[in-house]
């Protein structure tokens, strides 16, 4: 198993009810699969928001299909449009 640290930003923080969490995931799973696991673990997370948010692994932008390396810090940022 692969321990990762997850950080939530903006509205995701309210939905999850936490700023960060540690989660054990099988090695080789993608960012999208991690999103799915998080929505199961935090029922308040809106899947549509998670589906459209920006994700970073170790402060680098990542796409849904990217594999999460062991010990990574993964952050999720919802889109905002205000001006």
């Amino acid at each position, binding site marked *: 198993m692969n321990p990762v640290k997850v950080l939530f930003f903006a509205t995701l923080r309210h*939905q999850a009810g936490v700023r960060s969490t540690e989660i054990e995931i099988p090695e080789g799973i993608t960012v999208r699969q991690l999103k799915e696991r998080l929505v199961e673990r935090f029922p308040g997370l809106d899947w549509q928001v998670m589906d*459209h948010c920006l994700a970073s692994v170790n402060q680098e*932008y990542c796409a849904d299909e990217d594999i999460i390396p062991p010990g990574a810090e993964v952050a999720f940022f919802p889109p905002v449009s*205000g*001006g």
Partner: protein
Amino acid sequence: MELTREEILRYSRHLLIPEVGLNGQRKLKESSVLVIGTGGLGSPVSLYLAAAGVGRIGLVDYDVVDSTNLQRQVVHGTSTVGKLKVESARARLLDLNPMIQVDVYNVPFTSANALEIAAPYDVIVDGTDNFPTRYLSNDVAVFLGKPNVYGSIFRFDGQASVFYAQKGPCYRCLFPEPPPPGLVPTCAEGGVLGILPGTIGTIQATEALKLLLGIGDTLIGRLLLYNALDMSFDFVNLRKNPKCRVCGPEADIKELIDYEEFCGVPGHDHESGSAGADWDISAPELAARLQSANPPLLLDVREPHELQISWLPGALNIPLGMLAARLSELDSAREMVVLCKAGTRSARALELLVSAGFRRVKNLKGGINAWAREVDQNLPVY
């Protein structure tokens, strides 16, 4: 372009910085920046760029100043409430610095006019408040080969970056698809800390100035994420998306598209507060129905703290975010009118209710604000 004696005096604090100096100040005088939107972000951006001596500033906005703007849109003032935003801003900028030129475009920024408006400017600053116009200004910048200084805000969170497809990623590299309509609340629905656009807008102005002067490390390839409550600044390193449809090697979008259709929402009437004619009920109609023998149930989908501002007696409160989980509390056989502040969230709630099998549901068009204007003037509009 030479500086006049007056300009040398005015900009003396810039002339003292080696990175700007006389040459840099001359460069600024020859430069031009297009600021799209004269709202929360456009206010500090245009004020500081004008003060800094950017020779020509273009302002695009089609709106009129109203009093709810003044909590954050500091380029306007109480004396310009009711006036065109571009005229209000131009007067303030020229008062701050009469040595610059301010061009105004009192029109919606659309696919029909965007390339023509943006072409004569060196840098584009995205200070818009909706997704369609953000995708539009991104694509305009990509097609014209100009940098697009991006900023975006909500409540306590802000984002900023410089999207410059020749040197790094564009907005679409990050967000290939817009979120579904209504998923991301606007500041008009969800609110925004008034100072937040000041923080993000001054960062955008800084980046625009650095691009014009060719100094420093800009936010090209980096996204800044700011949170005012934590006072945190986080950065994410960005990369060009090889599948980007406007700036990737196999880009298939070669000209401006219909951005309202692409995003599924109007870019220029984001507070229409309507769920469609068949689903709407007006405030006076609702008032009459509430007097009838079998009045509908009122379902208020606003956040609990908004009820302290205004509320309708007897309304059941289930915030939109909790509605899906609390549908079992509602009786689908009973006629129901859904309401929020201005009718946008309630329209989204209506979609959810209809897809869950509710049929006897209506949307209060224009929300409780319409009720306060048309039925009960004792209620405040917010």
